[in-house]
Structures are given as structure tokens and as C-alpha cells.
């Protein structure tokens, strides 16, 4: 069992809220699998499958095949813009 805190930043937070806790009946899981599971659970989360939605694990941006361990935080985020 893995428990992971997922949060959403930018446009996707309009549809998905800021945070949700997810529990998986598995020993390990990848970022891509979390993305897919969210899209399965929630129609509004299909937007997460777009490639411009990036993801960070414990605040570090990672690719989709990155492993996520229990207790880590995963952030999905839309395109950024400062200044």
C-alpha cells in the first residue's frame, strides 16, 4: 500500500482542486501511472494526460517513468509564467 499526496497548480486546479490523497494497492508506482489513474477516476482529470502538464516529486520536476514512494508528494502543474 502506497499513500501519496497529490496537488494541482495552475489551470488544472480550477477543475481538480488543490490537493487530494491517493492510496494504491501496490509496492511501487510511477508518475505516469498516477496520471493515468487520476484520469480514470475523474473525467475532469483527462487534462492531466496532456504533455504540457508537468509533474514534480518532492518539488523536483521528473519524467513520467519516475518512481514515487509512499509519503512523497506529487505536484501536477500547468504551464508556468513569471514576471
Amino acid at each position, binding site marked *: 500500500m502506497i499513500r501519496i499526496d497529490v496537488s494541482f497548480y495552475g489551470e488544472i*486546479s480550477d477543475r481538480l482542486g488543490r490537493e487530494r490523497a491517493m492510496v494504491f494497492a501496490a509496492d511501487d508506482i510511477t508518475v505516469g501511472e498516477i496520471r493515468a489513474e487520476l484520469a480514470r477516476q475523474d473525467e475532469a482529470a483527462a487534462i492531466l494526460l496532456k504533455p504540457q502538464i508537468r509533474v514534480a516529486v518532492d518539488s523536483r520536476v521528473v519524467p513520467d517513468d519516475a518512481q514515487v514512494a509512499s509519503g512523497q508528494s506529487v505536484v501536477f502543474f500547468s504551464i508556468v509564467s513569471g514576471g
Partner: protein
Amino acid sequence: MAASANLELGHLDAGQELARFVAGLDGDGAVVSFTGLARAKASNGQAVSCLRLDWHPEMTPRSLIELALATAARFDVSDVRVVHRAGSIAPGEAIVFVAAASAHRRQAFLAADYLMDRLKTEAMFWKHESGPSGGCWIEPTEQDRADRARWSD
């Protein structure tokens, strides 16, 4: 070589930031600053009543200092500073202040220019403008991407 960044949740006073930056210098003669102010009109011409910059407690401050450090490493500058607002910002208020100091004015101009181009496309903020007819999320413009592409990294 020094670099510093500050995520400002309250008010950003560009004049005060420039005064402080200049006071902290040690002999360098050229200081370039950029100040970005919240616009009163969206790109579609409609009034903006409020700009909101959403931010992440770890990733956002880190993106600022990383971009300041990358700028300081790339140019012949003695000091680089970035102060960036987060949260709700009224039209006309300063969103961002950037300064670079060098013995050579060209390097100070390039450093401030480069840092702004990177902030526009890479600083970890999510910008939302709201007005009388609703709100929308703002992404970097084509011009922002073209400006960023001028630099070789």
C-alpha cells in the same frame, strides 16, 4: 559574485529595492533594473481587476534563486537580485523587480534582460487575470518564447 531572490507576499516597492541594491554594491559602476507592473488591460483589451499569482511553497522560491544564480554565473556581474510578488496584485502594482550590477554596462544590461526572459517562461508561477467578464490563466506569449530562444541555453 552574489545572487539573491525574494518571494514577496506583501508590497513590492521598486524604488526601495533599487536603493537597497545600489547601497549594497562594492565599487561596481553599472546597475540595470527591470520593474514589471501589473497591467490594467488584458491582451484582449478588457479591464483587469485583479491579477493572482499562484505559487508553490518550495518550487517557486527555488525557481527564483536558481534563475538568479544561473544569471550571475553566465555574465560578468558582481550581484544579481530578483524580488517577485505572489498572491493578489492590483493593476499598476509591481509584480517583479530584477537588478544586475557589473563593472561593464553591457553585461549588466544583458544579465537583467536574460533573467527577465527566463523568469517569464520558467519562474514557477501560475498567473490568473480576472475582470468583469470572468477570469483566465495567462501563459507566456509567443514573444516571451521568442525572447527566451535568443539565448543559447
